[in-house]
């Protein structure tokens, strides 16, 4: 599998995250999204006429749209069927609903981040207000999920691609000036996502401490030379 990837893109990060969690090896083709705008180049426009990332090539097929790619990867490579529960209509409906919600997060929280970090011209006030509106909904949803013993966005004991799809632009929101201080349930859910085995960070996304006792910590800080 080949991922057309931009390191700072939350949508590309979604795909990397799921591939890592599922333990799938893949290659990346780095795209100069900023400042080169390579995603608008003829070569890339041929693959995705919308001029967006990510794009995935797998076995001759070309797929665009982060949520569509997550769906494809989960159904094709997750034998357990838990990341995208195709056989349980109630769960599947929920997953689809929150995948669409993730798109709305991209349109608001990610837009605010593009404005602040990559100098996109857009209505920053509207983008931030829109993100806060969505975060209020997500926080309330997760808070009541916790009340009934649920850890994830969709019902069930296992995370789904809805968690993966919503996570990146939530956790990167502060880069767009959208604080998560008022969303305590979202903050706890972010910790839980970070503890999914196979979780990988990206620039601006930090690991959390281990809840379990098992974590193998390699010394992160070491001097190359010891002594005076």
């Amino acid at each position, binding site marked *: 599998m080949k991922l057309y990837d931009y390191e700072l893109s939350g949508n590309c990060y979604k795909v990397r995250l799921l591939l890592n969690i599922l333990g799938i090896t893949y290659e990346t083709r780095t795209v100069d999204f900023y400042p080169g705008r390579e995603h608008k180049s003829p070569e890339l426009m041929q693959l995705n006429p919308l001029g967006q990332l990510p794009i995935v090539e797998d076995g001759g097929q070309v797929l665009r749209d982060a949520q569509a790619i997550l769906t494809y990867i989960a159904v094709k490579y997750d034998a357990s069927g838990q990341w995208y529960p195709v056989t349980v209509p109630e769960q599947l409906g929920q997953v689809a609903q929150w995948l669409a919600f993730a798109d709305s997060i991209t349109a608001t929280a990610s837009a605010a981040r593009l404005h602040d970090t990559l100098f996109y011209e857009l209505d920053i006030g509207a983008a931030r207000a829109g993100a806060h509106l969505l975060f209020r909904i997500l926080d*309330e949803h997760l*808070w*009541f999920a*916790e*009340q*009934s013993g649920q850890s994830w966005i969709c019902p069930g004991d296992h995370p789904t691609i809805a968690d993966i799809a919503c996570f990146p632009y939530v956790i990167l929101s502060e880069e767009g000036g959208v604080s*998560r*201080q*008022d969303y*305590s349930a979202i*903050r*706890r859910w972010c*910790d839980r996502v970070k503890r999914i085995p196979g979780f990988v960070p990206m620039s601006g996304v*930090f*690991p*959390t*401490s*281990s*809840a379990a*006792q098992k*974590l*193998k*910590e390699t*010394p*992160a*800080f*070491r*001097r190359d030379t*010891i*002594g005076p």
Partner: protein
Amino acid sequence: MHIDLNQWHPIASSSDLPKRHIFHGQLWGRELAVWRADDGHVNVWENRCLHRGVRLSIGLNEGRELRCLYHGWRYANRTAGCTYIPAHPADAPARTISNNTYPGIEAHGLIWSAADPVGEFNTPEALQGSDVFALRAIPVNAALELVLSHARGYQFSPSGEGEASVSVQNETAGFITLHAKSANAEATLLLFFQPVDAGRTVLRGVLTAKPDTPVALLRHHNQAMSAMRDQIEAKAAAMDRPEPINVTFQRVDAELAQMPARAKSGPKAELRVSVTHKWQVATGIAGFRLEALSGQLPTFQPGAHIDVRLPNGLQRQYSLTNGPGETDHYAIGVKRDPASRGGSECLHDVVQQGDVLAISAPRSNFPLRRDALKTILIAGGIGITPMLAMAQTLKVQHLPFEMHCFAQSAAHLGFDDILNTLGTSTTRHLGLDPDATGAVLRDILTGYGEAHHVYICGPGPMLEAARTIAGNCGWPEDAIHFEYFKNTNEIDDSSTFEVALARSALTLQVPAGKSILEVLRENGIDAPSSCEQGACGTCLATVIEGEPEHQDVYLSPRERASNKSIITCVSRAKSKRLVLDI
């Protein structure tokens, strides 16, 4: 806006603090990092790392310590003192590096704090003794007064549905009490207002009795309060946005900002502690649990020791056995020394549970690096005490280590409660004679690798043997760390020489029969010290010029040879004159 920093407010729900999480809170403009340690203690800290001001709420709650994500500074549960700075792995952080904290009380499903509290926290009367039920908090982007004016008209139903008449029963600083009555039910709600900032308030509701259908009631209030929030925010949007509260932070601790008062010379024993537990740890070893009479005990690092002032006037040094984050007490183990000059005997025979002792703040002259690829701890007899603290630290941080405990027998070793938590990383070597001990040490110390470190504490002869064997096995001196119980060298104090104090611009004569330390004190120089026999390293001074005559057991051979440090309580000068950086 009236700011009352003395008032206690709920700032989080208990359920906001699950294991290993850091809650991001705020009160009167002050950002808070709120976290529960694995022992259940709730910490409410100023939300900024002392080092570069990064928010601690994005740091790591490691259960006993909080680690800043930026440069890895670690802060202890309860004390908020810094326990480790990765950029200085070989040094113990200064005792004065301590985060600003706020009080934190957990009660009635809520966490309570105050920016500048006056007096103790008191439970509001309506919550006393009742089976209270905290609702979902609702943050509102509006000033406290506006929220309050709407909250007086808050409508809810005791059962979660149907009509009810609601009245304000009581209004007091920080909250209002509402009573709802319907045809067949009634309920009392305390609505707290957490002033987050000038234009932001959190509504925290608490029912005085747990409802029959909790989730339905949670949803009922969530819906009603969210609707009220929308109304309030619509009003607030039409008004001028208040400026955020301008919080002035204390730049540094008061203790750091001013020169400390000139203290009386001599070893310090400024803390009063009570012996809350005394027990038999092993044959000939008594354990003591020491708790502060009031306030918080100072931060310690693994390997630290305290001076204990005994009822008979003697002063002795004991290593803390505490694991990281165990900051509500100090624990020491004391071996009865058959050749006791009155120290260990007094602790064994005289000091009892309930007694009050004077102790010093912990000193870290035997610091533990946390960047080693492998750490070996070697303990002989009671030398196990600092190793217990080190081993527990390495264990909870999942750093690779092995601990080897040498003792006469299992009954003499003791500390099973701690050793059993360390699992397979600990090996007990029991009843070995010196030759067999040497063979085992050779075995343990064979295979030095880069960034391996060994820590040794035990009786003199065993320590000497271990150091020699480590050297023979290729361990560089920087990788061999040791702590002697006492200095058994015979001190020769017959020389006379001159000591020049570069910073103090003072030149003193040290006559035969007096130590440098004594001469310093006679001349009004306040020099720290602890064991005063050349073992602990507290009185170490930097040598600028001249050649010391080393008589201590603290410095390593390389440190001795470099002539850059001197242990002033026992060592003297070979040259006619020493220039010290004092």
